[in-house]
């Protein structure tokens, strides 16, 4: 049997590795500048990470249709500005919230209300998604992962609220917090980038309150002390198409 002369003796490997380990341990304690060491930079970098979606929370919205003003589109405009959407001019343009006017035929009573993704507890869009791109976060927000969305639009067909849009054309100048692009389905994210930062309101709810209507209340449905929980406890509110048992997180008052 021949031995390969190029191969180093077996015992030299662990010795070299041991030396490197000692050297690395020594380096970690070496001061880079007065008062700053490598180990401190590493620790500082990890402290800014957010904890992520909290499974104890269920984000939801209450929309008081008696306060929603006919013809007002402040929530739609705020959503467009926040998420970098161009105002919809054609029926195929992406739109995350739309205002609808409804009329009860027998009585003639009319109401105006915004409709967006209802953030169902049992979302049909998630069930039909062939790639797992459509998913529900631990805190109840239903989202599309654009990295795995193939643009098949099954979810758009499955959604009874017509909440989702498809981006047909190339986009430019997206917001850093809201990446969007051609070939993907998208819908209301409940301003997930704000929530992850710890903010307590969405762009639409903020704009509605600012306009003096206060028709949109955003909050945690699981927290019995939150404003939204108190409101839905005291006033009658409904879920759209409650007969489908999708348990939407968005509720409507005064319908």
């Amino acid at each position, binding site marked *: 049997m021949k031995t390969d002369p190029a191969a180093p003796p077996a015992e030299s490997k662990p010795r070299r590795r041991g030396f490197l380990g000692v050297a690395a341990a020594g380096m970690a304690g070496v001061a880079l500048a007065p008062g700053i060491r490598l180990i401190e930079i590493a620790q500082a970098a990890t402290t800014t*990470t957010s904890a992520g979606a909290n499974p104890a929370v269920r984000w939801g919205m209450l929309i008081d249709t008696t306060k929603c003003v006919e013809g007002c589109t402040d929530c739609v405009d705020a959503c467009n500005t926040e998420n*970098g959407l161009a105002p919809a001019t054609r029926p195929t343009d992406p739109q995350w919230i739309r205002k609808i006017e409804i009329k009860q035929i027998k009585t003639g009573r009319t109401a105006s209300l915004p409709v967006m993704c209802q953030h169902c507890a049992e979302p049909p869009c998630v069930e039909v998604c062939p790639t797992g791109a459509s998913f529900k976060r631990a805190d109840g927000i239903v989202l599309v992962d654009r990295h795995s969305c193939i643009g098949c639009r099954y979810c758009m067909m499955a959604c009874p609220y017509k909440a989702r849009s498809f981006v047909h054309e190339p986009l430019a100048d997206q917001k*850093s917090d809201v990446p969007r692009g051609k070939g993907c389905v998208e819908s209301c994210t409940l301003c997930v980038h704000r929530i992850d930062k710890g903010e307590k309101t969405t762009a639409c709810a903020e704009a509605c309150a600012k306009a003096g209507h206060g028709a949109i209340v955003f909050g945690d449905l699981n927290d019995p002390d939150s404003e939204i929980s108190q409101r839905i406890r005291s006033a009658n509110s409904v879920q759209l198409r409650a007969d489908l048992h999708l348990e939407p997180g968005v509720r409507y008052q005064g319908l």
Partner: protein
Amino acid sequence: MRQIAALLATLTALAAGGAVAADEARTPRPVVEAARAGTQCVEPADVMRRDHMRFLKHQRDDTVHAGVRGAKYSLKECIGCHASPTTQSVATGETNFCTSCHSYAAVRVDCFECHSSTPQAVVQQGSK
């Protein structure tokens, strides 16, 4: 017979080595723009060159699905330091940070079809 084979192998190795050396001298290298002064990358340059796509891919799943933000690897932070001072972007001009290497390596970069290639502050100024 064995000696002839060894000689042939040596000659081939020498020829290949010579060709590599000549290629290195002839081949144009990508022009990589320097990062913003006074900034420090999260990893050494050689690690980032080899593994940046893996870091970003792991991080994006944590961010999108679990809502974990502000972690060590972040595309937004990359853009914050590496955006070109002239185009304010990492992927607009030929010499911009991402484009220069990716066109050299002939690897298409899809990130900026959805993600903004400019730092957030610039985007906000532009939209006002």
